[in-house]
C-alpha cells in the first residue's frame, strides 16, 4: 500500500466532547497503526496471515482490556477510550480490530465479569500483556444466529467435566492459548469455561479460503472428550446471558471500530477526488461524486454522534443491549455502504491494494455478519419497540 496519509474527520467538532487523554490515546494508536500496520497489512491480507508481531504492539498501546481495572493488568480506562482504540485499529484493518475485540471483550471481559478471583489473577495479566492470547467459542456449525440451540455439552464427572462438541468461525482460534467456551450442562443450562491449549482431545483447525478478514486467523474448536477441571468453569454466570453480555461489549466496540474503516474510505476517496483529473477537472468537481462524498461525511458524522452518546451511557452503566444493537447495525451498514461508494470513486484503482478500500469492503462483509447479523439486530430493535419477538 502507498504511504498512509490518513487524517481523521470531525465535521461536528466532536473532539470538544473528548478529554485530552482520549485524544492522546487516539493519536498514539493512530501513530502506531501508521508505523506498524499500514506498511504490511496489504501483504498480510494477500497472504492471509495474521502478523504475530502485532500482538506485542497491541498490548503496549493498551488494546487488550483497556477498560479492565489496572490491578488485573488492564488499562482502567473508560468506554470512550475503548471505542477510540477500536476505531483507530479498524481504520487500519477490521481483522486487527477483531483480534483486539476478541481478546478484550470476549475473553478478558467474561473472565473479569464471570470468573473467580483465582481465574482473574491467573489469566487477566497475561492476556493484557499479550503473553497469552484467547478466543471465544459460541457459534457452532448448526447454530449461528440461534446460539441457544447449541449442542456442545459438558458432563459432570465429580471433580471435572467432560466436554464434547465443535465450534466454528472462531477468531484467533488457530493460535489462541485459551478458549472461553460456551456449552450446555446436563440440565441444558449454558455454562462458560476456560479450555486451554494442550488439553487432551482439544484441537483448533484453521479455516482457509476466506475473502474477508484475511489478516485475522479464523478456525474451529473441536472437543473430543476433553477433561475440563472444575476450577476452569466460570462460576458467576449461567444461561445465554453469559455470552450475550460479552457480545454487548464487543458489539459496542464494533460500532466505534467501523467508523474507523468508514473514515479511511472517505478520507481516501476525498483525496483521490481532488487529485484525479477527468474531462479537464478534478472528479470531485462533478455533482455525482460530490453527492457520494457529502453523503459519506453526513453518515460518518451521524455515526460518531451515536457512538459518543452510547459511550456516555455505557460509562454510566445505562446502555441497553438494544441500544448497542442499533449502533452496531447502523454503523456497520454505514461503513459498508461508504466502502462500496468509495470504491467507485477510485475507479479501477479502487480494486487494487494501492488503496485500502477493497480490503475494508471485503472485511466489512464479515463485520456485518458476526456478533449478530444485520437482520438479527433489526429484529432486536423490532422486539424492543413492539415487545414481540420475531426470531422464531
Amino acid at each position, binding site marked *: 500500500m502507498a504511504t498512509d496519509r490518513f487524517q481523521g474527520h470531525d465535521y461536528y467538532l466532536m473532539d470538544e466532547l473528548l478529554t485530552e487523554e482520549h485524544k492522546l*490515546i487516539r493519536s498514539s494508536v493512530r501513530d502506531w497503526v501508521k508505523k506498524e500496520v499500514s506498511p504490511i497489512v496489504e501483504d498480510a491480507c494477500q497472504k492471509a496471515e495474521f502478523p504475530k508481531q502485532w500482538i506485542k504492539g497491541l498490548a503496549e*498501546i493498551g488494546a487488550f482490556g483497556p477498560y479492565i481495572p489496572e490491578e488485573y493488568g488492564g488499562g482502567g480506562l473508560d468506554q470512550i477510550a475503548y471505542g477510540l482504540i477500536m476505531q483507530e485499529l479498524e481504520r487500519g484493518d477490521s481483522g486487527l480490530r477483531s483480534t483486539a475485540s476478541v481478546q478484550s471483550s470476549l475473553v478478558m471481559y467474561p473472565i473479569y465479569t464471570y470468573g473467580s478471583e483465582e481465574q482473574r489473577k491467573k489469566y487477566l495479566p497475561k492476556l493484557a500483556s499479550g503473553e497469552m492470547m484467547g478466543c471465544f467459542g459460541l457459534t457452532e456449525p448448526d447454530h449461528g444466529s440461534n446460539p441457544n440451540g447449541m449442542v456442545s455439552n459438558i458432563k459432570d464427572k465429580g471433580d471435572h467435566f467432560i466436554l464434547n462438541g465443535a465450534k466454528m468461525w472462531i477468531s484467533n482460534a488457530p493460535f489462541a492459548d485459551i478458549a472461553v467456551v460456551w456449552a450446555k450442562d446436563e440440565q441444558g443450562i449454558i455454562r462458560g469455561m476456560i479450555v486451554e491449549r494442550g488439553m487432551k482431545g482439544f484441537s483448533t483447525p484453521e479455516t482457509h479460503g476466506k475473502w474477508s478478514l484475511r489478516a485475522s486467523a479464523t478456525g474451529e474448536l473441536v472437543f473430543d472428550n476433553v477433561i475440563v477441571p472444575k476450577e476452569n468453569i466460570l462460576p458467576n454466570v449461567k444461561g445465554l446471558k453469559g455470552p450475550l453480555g460479552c457480545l454487548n461489549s464487543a458489539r459496542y466496540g464494533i460500532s466505534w471500530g467501523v467508523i474507523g474503516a468508514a473514515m479511511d474510505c472517505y478520507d481516501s476517496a476525498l483525496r483521490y477526488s481532488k487529485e484525479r483529473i477527468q474531462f479537464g477537472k478534478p472528479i470531485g468537481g462533478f455533482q455525482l461524486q460530490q453527492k457520494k462524498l457529502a453523503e459519506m461525511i453526513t453518515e460518518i458524522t451521524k455515526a460518531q454522534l451515536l457512538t459518543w452518546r452510547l459511550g456516555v451511557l455505557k460509562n454510566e452503566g445505562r446502555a441497553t443491549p438494544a441500544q448497542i444493537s442499533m449502533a452496531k447495525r447502523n454503523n456497520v451498514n454505514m461503513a459498508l455502504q461508504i466502502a462500496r461508494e468509495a470504491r467507485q470513486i477510485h475507479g479501477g484503482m479502487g480494486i487494487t491494494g494501492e488503496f485500502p478500500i477493497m480490503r475494508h469492503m471485503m472485511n466489512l462483509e464479515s463485520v456485518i455478519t458476526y456478533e449478530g447479523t444485520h437482520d438479527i439486530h433489526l429484529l432486536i430493535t423490532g422486539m424492543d419497540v413492539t415487545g414481540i419477538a420475531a426470531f422464531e
Partner: protein
Amino acid sequence: MKILVCISHVPDTTAKIIFTPDNKEFVSQGVTFIINPYDEIALARAIELTDGGKGTVTAINIGDISTEPTIRKALAIGATDAIRVNAAPRDGYFVAAQIAQIAKQNNYDIILCGRESSDHNGASVPSMIAEMLGVPAISSAKKLDVEGTNANLEREIEGGKEMVSTSFPFVAGASEGMAEPKIPNMRGIMSARTKPLTVVEPVDAPELSKIVSYDKPVSRSSVKMIAQEDAGKLWDMIREEKKII
C-alpha cells in the same frame, strides 16, 4: 544524569496555515498542536540515555495553559517530570532566557533541544541557552552517546559529518537520526496523569526583536503548455510576457 529537554508546542505539520487579515498573527483556532518533531527526537534520545534508572528527564515548555496536553504527551512518552513557564513564547531570546534561568537553578548535565522548531524555524534557541549559561553548544546533532561525564556527538556538515566531543554540561540541538521518536504506550499515558508538572512564572527578558508580519509563499502558477509547432515563440514569451530576461 539529569537531562532537560526543551519541548515546543507547534501546529501539526499538516495543519492549514492561516494568518489574521492584517498578517500579524497566526490563527490557531481549529489547529491541532503537536510536540515539535525535532524535540520528539531529543526526548526519545534522552529517555534512551536514562533508561533503566540511569537518570531523569525533565521536559520544559514556555507556554500558556493550552500547551499542557503537549507537555502531558512528553510525560506519557517517558519524561520523569515537567516544567511549564507560564508565558507566551514571544521570541527565541525570551524562550532561551526562561530555559537558562531554570537550568541555572537545577544543574542539568545535558540540555537537549530540537535543532529548530517546525513553526518559526529560528534554530537559535539552543545556542542562545548555551551562551547564557556559558556552556558548549552543539547544533544539529545526528548522534549523541555518553561516556561517564563526556559526550560524543556527530554533526551533519556539507558532504559529510563532523565528530565532536564535549563534557557535561552542554546544550545540543537534535536532528534526524539521533533517535526514533517514541509513540506513547498505555502505561505511559496512565502514569502521565500523576507525574509532576510544575508551573513557574517567567523572568523578565528584553524584547530584542519583533515579528512585524507574516506572508505566505505565493502559490505556484500553473504550467503553460506550448504546442510543438509554436516552440519558437518561447523566447518572446519569456522576454515580453513574463519579463524574466
